[in-house]
Structures are given as structure tokens and as C-alpha cells.
């Protein structure tokens, strides 16, 4: 446990607008972590990305335009609309192939569907990178699932709509498109509206819209496109059949369970199980574990000044990191357990020498743990506690 790291103050994570006093009625907005992972570090260094070409006209349209000057205007308009209809048709067929309605784009299809200047549709693109799925702090797989939910909700609400399509792009197979969009950090979602002529002009969904997952993405889409997305329907954790099966199993097991309980030989009758459970709940709560769950804080973060250094302890009372909470929580629990060991276990030991040795060890460790917690608390919150002696004693 790297308690020594505490001196470095993290700044990257800390999107803290203002620090109020303890009981002021404001709070830090729990935006989804705000962690950016820079793709440049990921891309193979030898592979220099080519400059993005200026949007090339769609081949279908070029072929359709006849060189006859007389008919040029008329034909161009017709061809454009025909080409666009074509594209819409293709997109719809692609959409129908995917269960959630998310179209998978590659470099070529990006050029085909998004580079043409006349598009009657908007596209919401999710930028994905399979190689980063293992980075738990980016939440890419989770956001990708939420994105699929969003798409499914939109499709359910607007079954035959061709105003908005949902698409995703994978980094390793479409690096060119990533550079065209100017995307260098993930998670990243962009909305390409019909009037965006350059891809880089498209609108970027900012971090705050990931905070409540699909629900906040809905807000973004509705605000920018004016389309109604509709309620998000999440799939239940277990399907209907599984629920029926579980209920049946539960019903069948009730008599056996009651019998066991009456006989009094279940795991529930073991006092040590209850004791361990109680201690664990206590440990988890006092270490601020619920804070981590509610605010999605990471266990530790990297220092902004020095990326190789990890920060385990965050200075400032409004926020805590996972590791620091569990470290202090285990100190809390450790001291209590040692006192319990002395009062209940050590008194039954017969050897005086063992008793003496163990007590000294307990006292030293306890002293250290209490001091450590007091020191950390002062360091973190900045409170310095002083005594109130009678003034005549001074």
C-alpha cells in the first residue's frame, strides 16, 4: 500500500468546481470520471497516419452526373437525391442486420456515408477501441452497451425513421477515420448532422453526457437533433423463463430449507459466519466503499505531473479514492480486532511469555495505526484539533 505516494496531489481526476464547507448545500457533479486515454500512445509509432483527404465526392454521384451542361443542374439535383436515397436505403438495410440497430462503419463506409456533402440524415458515431476494453476506468464496453440501448430505444420509438442512424467505428481497423474526425481520446461520441460538411466540424458529446449513461445520452440527442428518442428499456437481468424457473426452484426448496432450519444445522446457525459478515459490512462502510459505488471513483489515479507515479491518497475532504478508503478502513478494523483478540482470546492462553509478547505487539501496532489515521485525517481534511484547557493553566 503506497501511503508514501500521498504527497503528490492529483489534478487530472479532480473536476471539482468548488469546495464548499461540509454542510453547504452544494456538491460536486458526479460526471463520469472524465478520464481520457490518449490514443497516440496506443497507435504503433512506425505507422504515421496519412493526412485526411478533403472529402472526396461519392463515386455513385460522380457517375450519375452527365457532362451535358444543359441538363447539369437538373440532373445533379436528381442524382443527388437518388444517391441520397440510395445511401439511406443501404443504411437502413445495414441497420436491420444489427440487432440493436448500430451500424458498424469502417474507413470505406465512413467515406461513403458521411463524406458526401448532401446527407438527409444525422449519424451518431461511437468511437470504440477493442484494445482499450481492458482499461476498466474508461468503461468502454459499458458505454458501448448503453449506446446500443440508446439505438434500440430510438428504433423502437421511431420504427422507420431515416433521420438518425447509430454507428460505431473501431480504432484498429479505421485509424484513418479517427484522424479525420480528430478523435484522439476515448470515450468519444460524435453527432454528424446534415449540415456538417467537414467531419471534424461534427458535434462532440462531452463527458457530462456519459454520467447517467444512456439516459443522459438521450438528452444530448434530443437537444441536438430535436428527435424524440423515447424511453430507454434495459433488458432485465434475468429473462422471464429464468424467473419462472427460479421461482419454481425456490418454491421447491422451501420445505427442505424449513426442515434444515428446524433441525438447526444450516450455515445460518454458525455464529462465526454472522460475525464475519457483520465485520465485513462494518469494514466496507467505514472505508467509504459506498462512496466508491455511488460516485464510481477509481482505486487510484495516475499523477498528472508524472504519469508513472500512482496516486493512492487524495488530499481534500470532499473526495476519496478507493484504495485510500480501504487502507484506512482496514486500520479501523485492525485495531478493533486486536482489542478483541486481547480481551477474548489472549486471556485463555496459558503461557505468560506468549501473552506478554502478544500484548506488547498489539500495543505497538495499535499505537502506530491510531497515529497513522490521525495523521492522515489531519493531512486530508486540514482540521487541526486543539484542546480547551482552563485559561488559568496556560
Amino acid at each position, binding site marked *: 500500500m503506497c501511503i508514501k505516494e500521498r504527497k503528490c496531489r492529483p489534478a487530472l481526476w479532480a473536476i471539482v468546481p468548488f469546495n464548499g464547507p461540509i454542510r453547504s448545500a452544494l456538491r460536486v457533479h458526479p460526471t463520469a470520471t472524465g478520464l481520457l486515454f490518449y490514443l497516440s500512445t496506443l497507435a504503433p509509432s512506425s505507422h504515421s497516419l496519412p493526412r485526411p483527404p478533403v472529402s472526396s465526392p461519392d463515386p455513385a454521384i460522380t457517375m450519375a452526373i452527365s457532362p451535358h451542361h444543359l441538363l447539369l443542374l437538373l440532373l445533379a439535383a436528381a442524382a443527388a437525391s437518388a444517391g441520397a436515397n440510395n445511401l439511406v436505403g443501404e443504411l437502413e438495410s445495414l441497420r436491420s442486420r444489427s440487432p440493436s440497430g448500430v451500424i458498424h462503419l469502417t474507413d470505406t463506409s465512413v467515406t461513403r456515408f458521411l463524406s458526401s456533402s448532401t446527407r438527409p440524415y444525422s449519424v451518431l458515431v461511437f468511437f470504440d477501441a477493442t484494445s482499450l476494453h481492458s482499461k476498466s476506468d474508461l468503461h468502454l464496453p459499458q458505454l458501448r452497451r448503453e449506446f446500443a440501448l440508446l439505438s434500440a430505444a430510438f428504433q423502437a420509438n421511431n420504427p422507420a425513421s431515416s433521420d438518425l442512424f447509430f454507428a460505431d467505428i473501431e480504432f484498429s481497423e479505421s485509424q484513418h477515420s479517427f484522424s479525420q474526425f480528430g478523435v484522439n481520446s476515448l470515450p468519444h461520441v460524435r453527432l454528424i448532422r446534415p449540415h456538417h460538411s467537414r467531419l471534424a466540424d461534427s458535434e462532440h458529446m462531452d463527458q457530462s453526457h456519459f454520467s447517467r449513461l444512456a439516459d443522459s445520452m438521450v438528452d444530448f440527442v434530443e437537444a441536438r437533433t430535436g428527435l424524440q428518442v423515447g424511453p430507454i428499456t434495459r433488458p432485465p437481468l434475468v429473462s422471464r423463463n429464468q424467473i419462472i424457473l427460479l421461482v419454481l426452484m425456490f418454491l421447491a426448496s422451501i420445505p427442505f430449507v424449513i426442515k434444515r432450519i428446524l433441525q438447526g444445522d444450516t450455515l445460518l446457525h454458525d455464529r462465526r459466519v454472522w460475525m464475519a459478515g457483520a465485520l465485513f459490512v462494518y469494514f466496507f462502510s467505514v472505508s467509504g466503499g459506498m462512496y466508491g459505488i455511488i460516485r464510481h471513483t477509481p482505486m487510484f489515479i495516475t499523477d498528472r505531473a508524472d504519469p508513472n507515479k500512482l496516486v493512492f491518497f487524495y488530499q481534500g475532504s470532499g473526495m476519496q479514492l478507493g484504495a485510500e478508503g480501504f487502507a484506512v478502513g482496514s486500520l479501523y478494523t485492525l485495531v478493533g480486532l486486536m482489542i478483541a483478540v486481547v480481551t*477474548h482470546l489472549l486471556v485463555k492462553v496459558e503461557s505468560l511469555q506468549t501473552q506478554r509478547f502478544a500484548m506488547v505487539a498489539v500495543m505497538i501496532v495499535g499505537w502506530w495505526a491510531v497515529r497513522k489515521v490521525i495523521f492522515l*485525517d489531519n493531512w486530508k481534511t486540514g482540521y487541526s484539533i486543539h484542546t480547551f484547557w482552563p485559561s488559568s493553566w496556560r
Partner: protein
Amino acid sequence: MAEVESSTAASGGDRLRKASGGVLCAFTLLLIGVLAFSIRLFSVVKYESVIHEFDPYFNYRVTQFLSKSGIYEFWNWFDDRTWYPLGRVIGGTVYPGLTLTAGTIWWLLNSINIPLSVETVCVFTAPIFSANASWATYLLTKEAKGHGAGLMAATILAMVPSYISRSVAGSYDNEAVAIFALIFTFYLYVKALNTGSLFYATLNALSYFYMVCSWGGYTFIINLIPMHVLLCIITGRYSSRLYIAYAPLVVLGTLLAALVPVVGFNAVLTSEHFASFLVFIILHVVALVYFIKGLLTPRLFKVAMTFVLTVGLALCFAAVAILVALVASSPTKGWSGRSLSLLDPTYASKYIPIIASVSEHQPPTWPSYFMDINVLAFLVPSGIISCFLPLSDASSFLVLYLVTSVYFSGVMVRLMLVLAPAACILSGIALSEAFNVLTRSMKFQRPRSDDGLPAAEDITPGTSSTAATIAKSGNITKEKTENVSKGRPSKKNQKEKEWVGSSPVRPDMEEKLCVLPAEASAMGILFLIILCGLYVVHCVWAAAEAYSAPSIVLTSRSHEGLHVFDDFRESYAWLRHNTEVDDKVASWWDYGYQTTAMANRTVIVDNNTWNNTHIATVGTAMSSPEKAAWEIFNSLDVKYVLVVFGGLIGYPSDDINKFLWMVRIGGGEFPHIKEEDYLRDGNYRVDAQGTPTMLSCLMYKLCYYRFVETDGKGFDRARRYEIGRKHFKLTHFEEVFTTHHWMVRIYKLKPQKNRIRGKLKLKSSSKASSMRKGAGKKNPWQ
């Protein structure tokens, strides 16, 4: 069994010891009460005898009304001073326990010719009840682990910072009496459980009634006790005492709870209460099984068992089905938002901004625990283990109480208050056991040689004079056992003997002399005393420095000395004296209670956040541009707008810092308000980087109007940067009052222009606008 009885039939000297012990105990309890009362007086000594914060002002106003108009008027009180134009039925929407308590105290004192003002009584209600709470803690802990642990726990509770934060003198809030009611209800439950006496069970229901009157947190009781009953049944600890302790509570308690207007039929209709009914049914089924088991031979019992089980299960399922149907028919599945956010911690932050916006509802970090229960956090695990060795009904209840409350406190920092008594009780047990072992080791020593030990095991108390010390210590341990399996009345009937026999304490285990080396024990005692000393220092510091600020009067200590900011009362006094009685004042909801109580003016929204739309309307007005805001306020008959501004003195919890919540709550109801319009790249700021929407909204303008005149640069000390828009004029509002430190600024809505027809229109409108400009320049307070 016989040994225990012989030891209880004590000699005369023993009786004297017991009597002096009782006197000492009573005296200690008295001192603990004095301690609990006086540690909470820091706020009166350091500041003055005022009511604190926001909610207490409402309670104070209600108490004033009660003492003036009497109980029946109070019950039917419709308050037209708040939530204009809706008003609020106070009698039906308030938990009356606190008000009635303080009202009764005031009436009693006055009837014996002690003329105290209502305010004084209100200020000192909380300290008085903390003394009561520490006595209740003593009783509860004594039920589980004996007098020593009880006294220790009471002492610890008397000064636990978490409880002090809600019960300093002047903090006249529901929690002040509710914590006492909570502990006392638990005590009566445990007492009823230990004695099996219907008397205590009935008292328990009454105490539960008082708790329901006092605080919405009563749902904690009505879920915790059923959980404990269920736990007892599952672990095979069912007894008739359990039935007596629980069944009257559910029946009487629910009937009584339904009498409180604010609860009413919720007591049977909402999901928070269903657990108790379900457990009530299960308890009856189990009781029936035990009854039949007593009647029949084992073989017949098996047959009957299957029969009863099928019938019982069928009944259970029918009941569950009815409950499920009831629950499913309500939109929120019968749960209130707050309880849902306890079960699913992420619920509130996702769906209910009005709950998520309150700082009390945030999850705490580890320093919060160290701040609020301090060294108790170290001691509690030891207390948990002590409760398991041996496990009795009472101690299992304490463990369950701790575990649930520590989980809830992890979800909401506010519920740290419920955790505090549990932590105190378990730490008291831990400390008392540790002191017990260590002092015993210093007093009695084990015989030097190793073969002394089996000898000590053989010796029974009082048989040999040489082993007098050992015998004595044996007595002590036995007394402890007796205390543990507590509460038996002297008339022991067959059942209770059976129960004691089944208790896991084996007497022969207690015979062994359990001691530690003397010198190490002395060291250990020293360390424990240092730990307790740390706790005392911390508690006094917390009571004096951290928790006694009334927040209506602010102080700051600089090198020039103490500086007092009394701007809030200044502004409320201005409103009271310079505006019409029926004028409506709009402000963010935080200041609603104070405005009605101190300025006696009608407000639009207040801290009782029962109508989200109304709050959202005010939020929308504050986040709209001036003209739109004027229209909203005018439609609500508002005449004055009050904003709290900390930029001049660096007060961080002002309206600009709360503003994002106004936007969020407003945007929740009126979608044209969008949070991202107020954020630059996801950051909230009001400097040059601020968005145009932000810099032209009403809140910004009202806060920073003429601010640049103070230092020429417009440097905001709360945000620590220069503001974005410095020179601007107000078109629809005029400044009427700004307090000494600019903390409260009051604006008046300009009157509507006269409508003039025909040709005159052009001329007069230009004239009117020029006049308005003139009016804008002239400030009557300069």
C-alpha cells in the same frame, strides 16, 4: 443453575456493596446527564441563544403558533405565508412530536410560574433530550451487557460528535428528540424480549408512537425490529418472549402510527411498513408450529407439521400476493424516494435531483467517520465480537442495529446520526470488557507455576480459603454471566430455566481464571485511557469549533480579531420593517423558512420541498434572462427577490454556488432551461469564460449588480477570480437593500408600465424608458 441461585442469595455485605454500587451508578448517570447537557452549550456561550440554521426556524415558528393558539388551532393550521399561492396545511404535514414536546415543556414551566420565552425553551430542548438519550443508552446497553458497559456507553454517547452536530443548543430539529425516542424504543423492545412482559411491550408501542410523531426515521425501527425477529426465528431462537415483544408492537404501534396525520394510512399502505406485517405472519406460523409441537407426540407432530406447513405456506403466499399486488399498483412500487435511495444507493443521483442536491444526502468518505465517531471507529469491531461471545437475543439485536445503520450511513452522511448510538453502545461494550479484563489481571495473579492452572480449574468458589482470590474472580465472572443472560425476574418459571439452560454460556468455562500479565495490563490500561482522552479532546473540539456555529451568524477570525457577519438577520429585519405585511418575497428554497419566521413575509418556496414544480418555477426564473424572470415572478405576485451573495467576503455556500442546482431542478420541469447552456466545456464559471446565457441570467445579474464598484475590478473572493460581466444595468428590477457585507441583496420588481393608446404611445414610451434609466442610475441607498 443452583450455583447461580446461591450466588444471588447474597449475604448482608454483598447487599451493602450492591446498594452503594447502585448509588454510585445513579450519581454517575446524573453526571453523564450534566455532561451531555453542558457540552452542547458552547453555541450559547460562544455566540448567543439563537435558533440555528434553516429547519429549526420553521419548528420554532410552529411552536410559537402552538403556544399562542393552542393544540386544536395548531392541528387545523393552514399556513398562507408559504408556498404562495398554494399555502400549506401545517397540522397535517408536520411531524408534531418536537413541537408538542417543547410546547408541553413551555406550558409546564409557565404553569409553575417560571416565565421562560418560547425561544429559550426551543433552544434548550435539544440538550435536555441528549441527556435523556444518554440515560436511554445506559438502559439499552445494560440489558445486553450489564451496568459497566451501560455506563461506558452512556458516557460515550453523551459526547459523540455526530449527535452533537444535531443537538447543540439552538439546533431545534426533529432529530434532537427523535434519537432519544429511537434508543428508548429499542431499549423497551429488548427489555420486553428479555422479560417477556406485556407491560414493557405496551410501553414499547407507546414509545414507538412518540418516535413516529417525531421523525420520519421511524421507518428504521419498524424495519429493524422485524429483521431481528426474523433473524431470531431463522437461527432457531424463537421463544414466547419474542412473540410478546413483537406482536403488540405491530398491532398497537401501527394503530397508533396511523393516528399521526402526516403518516395516516401510509402506516399500512406503503412498502416501508410491509416487512413488519410479513414478519408478523411468519411469527404466527412459527408460533403455531411450536404450540402444536408441545401438544403432540413426535410422530403425530410430523404429520401435523406437514399439514400446518402447507396451510401456513398457503396463507403466507396469499398475503405475499396481496402485498405484491398492492405494491405493484403504486407508481414508485410503494417506496418513497428517500428509502429507495437507501436500498439502491445510485437511485437518487440518477433520478431525483432535489434529494441528490442536499449535501446531507451525499455518501460520506472515510474522514467523515473519523470526524463524527472518532476513535469509536477503532473500538466497534471489538464490540461486535464481544456481542457474539456469548450471543444473546439482546446482543444480537445490537449487532444487527450496528450493521444496518453503518450500511445506511455509508449511503447518506445524514444517517451517521443513526449510527452514532449503535457505535457508542458497541464501543462501550468493547471498552468495558477490555477494562474488565485488564483491571482483573492487575488485581488477581495467576499462580506462578504452570501446574497452578488445572488447580484453578478444579476449585469452585468459596470452598477453599487459600484460593480466595481465585474464588472472588470466579464470582466476578459469574456475575457477568448473570448480567449477560439478563432481565430474568426473580420468579423463575420453567420456560425461562429452559431458556437459560439453552444459552451458550457454559458455566465450567467461566471457572478458569482468565488473566494477563500485570505489567502489560497496566500498559494496556494506559493506552486505553490515552485513546479515551483523544476522544474527549476531539469531542470538545468538535462541539466548540465545528458544530456550534449557528450559520445564521457567521464569524471569521483574522489577525485583527474576531469579525461577525450578521447580514442575514439584518436583511430579514429590513424586510420586516420596510415592506408591507402581505408582500411576497422570492428566494431560493433554502431561505424560505427563515424568511417566514424572521421577516414574517410570504414566500414562494421553502425548505419543505413538497412541490417540485413550484421550486422548479423559481429555479427557472433565476436562470432566465431578466424580462422572462420578471414575467414569472410577476405572475406569482412576487414583489421582492432576495439573493445571497458571498463574493465580497468569500462565503462559499451562496446562491452562485448553488445555482447549477437551480438550473438542474428548473430544467427538470421546464425543458427550455438546459444545463449545458450554463457550462463552458463542462465547467461552471462566471468569469470571462462564462457562457452568455450564464452571464445574462437573473441570478448573475442580481448577485453582481454594482459589484465592480466595490474594488474597481470585480474580484469575486468566493470563486477567486474576476467576474465576466462587470458593467450592466437592470431593466426590470431595482435594488432596494444590500446588507453591510453584501451577503444578502434584496431587489424589488419594477412596476408594469402604463398602457397608453394611440399617438402618445411612442412619445411616452421613450419618456418612460428615459425615466427608467434615470431611476436605474439613482440608488436610494448610496
